[in-house]
Every structure is written in C-alpha cells, then in structure tokens.
C-alpha cells in the first residue's frame, strides 16, 4: 500500500509528462463541462424557484431521476446521436473532446439544476419582495438572487464537477480513451487496471482526489471574497 503513495507522489513530483497531460485533460474537460452545464442550469433553477406553473413538479421529478442515470447510458444515448449515421453524425464529434463534453454536460446538468433549484428555493421568502420593492429587476435581480445563495450554488456546482471528474463511462465511450487526445485520469485508471497495473491506477486515483480536493478548497476560499 505504501508503495502506491510513493508512486503517486513520484508521478506528481517528477512531473511525468504524460501524467500531467492526462490530468490537465481531465481538468479541462471537467471545468468546461461544469461551467457550461451551470450556464444551462442557472436559468432553469431560477425559473423553477421563482415561478409556479403547470408541469413544474414533473420537471423536478424528471431532474431528480436523471441524476441517477448511469454514465454508460448517457454515453450510449449521445453515441446514438453522433455516430456516423445518426442525426448529428456529420459533425464528426465521436471520439473527440467535444463528444466527451456533451456527455458530461448531460451528466452534470440534472444534478446542478436540481441543487441550484433547492439552493434558490431555500432562501428567505422576503428576498424577492425586497428586491422588487427596491426597484431591482432584470438581470441584476437574478444575479443577486444567485449571489445571496452563493455557497449553496457553489456546492451545486461542485457536486456536478465531482460527478464529472470521477466518471469513466462517458469519457470511455464517447472519447475512446485516445492517447494524447481524449485520455483522462479515469479512463487511464480503467486501462491500467485492465493491464494489471494496479499501483499506477491507484496512484492516478490519488492524483484525482488531490485535484478534486484542491478545486474544492480553492473555490470555497474564493467565494468568501465575492
């Protein structure tokens, strides 16, 4: 067991070129997907928390059940849309970073939207009225609603990020685990495990945890100043 940590440390400290590339690829995909999923999820979360309309409950139930969707199912679903003969086949997205990011957005969107919705609906009910009576409307109103719930919104975002950075199904299926291109930490772990390189796989797992931890700490520290 000890040797695993030594190996992980060694990989980080010596700055193994391929490990760095893989880690940065993982991070790049996960950050892009989280940001894009959040951009899509914020309006929905705001809409759900601000107004009541027919079908609102249905949307919430739907979002909650989508959270449990296995990554391979999302992978398959996206594959069936971007495979050569599929509706979006001519875009040539399969086995590119774009495909992974699409899959990861679908993976993270329900969790982020649903958590943003609960973050925003847990607010003091007098907040929207206070904004109205202070003449704050439009974009600024929405921004303040989000800012007032920033810690919970951040947790939503981080949950989405966590689900993305740790997933393997979507990246493997849609990215193809292509070396120097779409290979991520998790697909490398799967690959190395299949080759019997358990130590290297575990070392990469540790690197994943370190990345995740760092991002969480940095964001939580950063949010205090916003």
């Amino acid at each position, binding site marked *: 067991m000890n040797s695993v940590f030594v190996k992980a440390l060694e990989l980080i400290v010596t700055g193994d070129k391929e490990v760095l590339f893989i880690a940065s690829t993982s991070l790049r995909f996960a950050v892009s997907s989280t940001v894009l999923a959040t951009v899509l999820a914020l309006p929905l979360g705001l809409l759900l928390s601000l107004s009541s309309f027919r079908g609102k409950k249905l949307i919430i139930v739907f979002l909650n059940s989508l959270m449990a969707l296995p990554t391979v199912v999302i992978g398959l679903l996206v594959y069936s849309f971007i495979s050569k003969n599929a509706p979006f086949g001519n875009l040539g997205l399969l086995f590119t970073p774009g495909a992974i990011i699409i899959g990861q957005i679908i993976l993270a969107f329900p969790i982020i939207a649903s958590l943003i919705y609960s973050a925003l609906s847990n607010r003091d009910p*007098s907040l929207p*009225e*206070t904004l*109205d*009576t*202070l*003449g*704050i409307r439009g974009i600024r109103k929405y921004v303040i609603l989000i800012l007032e719930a920033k810690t919970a919104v951040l947790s939503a975002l981080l949950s989405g990020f966590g689900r993305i950075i740790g997933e393997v199904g979507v990246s493997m299926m849609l990215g193809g685990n292509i070396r120097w291109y779409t290979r991520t930490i998790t697909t490398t772990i799967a690959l190395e495990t299949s080759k019997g390189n358990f130590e290297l796989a575990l070392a990469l797992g540790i690197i994943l945890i370190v990345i995740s931890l760092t991002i969480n700490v940095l964001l939580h520290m950063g949010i205090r100043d916003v």
Partner: protein
Amino acid sequence: MYNSVIFRNITFSYTGECVLDIDTLTIEEHRVTAITGPNGSGKTTLLKILSGLLLPDHGEIIFKGTILLNGKRRKILMENSTFVHQTPYIFSGSVKRNLTMGIKSEHTCKELLEIFDLEKYRNSRASGLSGGEKQKIALARAAGMERDILILDEPLAHIDSESKLIIENVLKEMAAKGKTLIIATHDHTFASRIADKIIHMDNGKIVRSVQ
C-alpha cells in the same frame, strides 16, 4: 388635502380563504396612516397590496385620481412606494452594500449612515448585527429610495429602546418633510403619537377609522 391611494371593494384570498375584504380605504397624501389590529387581521396583506407586491383578487385601486388597470397596478404602485418587512431581509455583505442596493449615490449613503447612527457599522457584516440595527438598515435602505410612499410593517417590533427612539424620530422627520407613511403596528400609543389617521382592522376587515 389630496388622496394618494383609494381602495374599493378589494379582496384577497390565500389558499382559498379570504384574508382581506375592504369596502373602501383612503390613504391621504403627505399624511401618516397607522394600521392597527391583532395578528392575522390582514395588516401585512393590506400593506403588500398597497406596495404592489401582491395583486388583489378583485376590486379597484385608484392612484392619484386614476384607476389603475390590472396590468399597471404592480408597476405603478411599486415605482411610487417602498415596503419594509417586519423582519427585513438583510443582504450578505456589509451595511454599506445593503444601503447601496437600491441607490447609487455615495453621498446619500453617507447621509443615511449618519441619520440612522450606523456609521460605526459601515463595513460590518450586516447579517451579524442586532435586530434593531437590522431594522435601521432596512429603513435607511428604503428611505434612500426617496419614494413618495413609505410602507412599514411593524417597524418597532422586537427591537431595543434606543433603536426605537431613533426610528421614531426619523419617521417623524420624514412625515414633516411631506412623505406619505403607512405603518402597521400593534402598539397603540406609538400609533397615536405618530399617525394622523388610525385604521383598526380585524379579521380582514376595517372595523374603525379614526382621524
């Protein structure tokens, strides 16, 4: 004397139950109107309709001589009034941020901090202050909006006597400057000290109106 807002046959129900039923109510311009009554008598609902935050189910609202059409009610009432909750919402961040939510001018902000004796808290985290300070912050925030009509829900409830004194004085000054004030309170002596007209409510209805 001018009439600022007139209600006719206004009703409002909440989850099927009628909580407000007002035949007629006149709010006079540049006057202080106090609304008294027990808890649950419909004071807060009335205030929220006056400030445009709630729309009545039925009835007519006349503002400065014009009947407000359904679609315009919220907008016109909101633009001319500002409402302060019984337990005001305090934004995250400093007292200064709370004051400048509605107003832009640094100068006004500075003045308000002085008037409400809040300078020492200028950069303090507002949500950590006492109930009295929070009420003063909310009042200062609303006062800074410089709307003609100021609507306050129980501004003196649950706060220390020092803050009470400051708030009462500020309200008197505002009244003297010609603001239209509408204040819900269950403190009758406060009502009689400050108001030109006292409206007593019970069970969603106006039961008495004293000039």
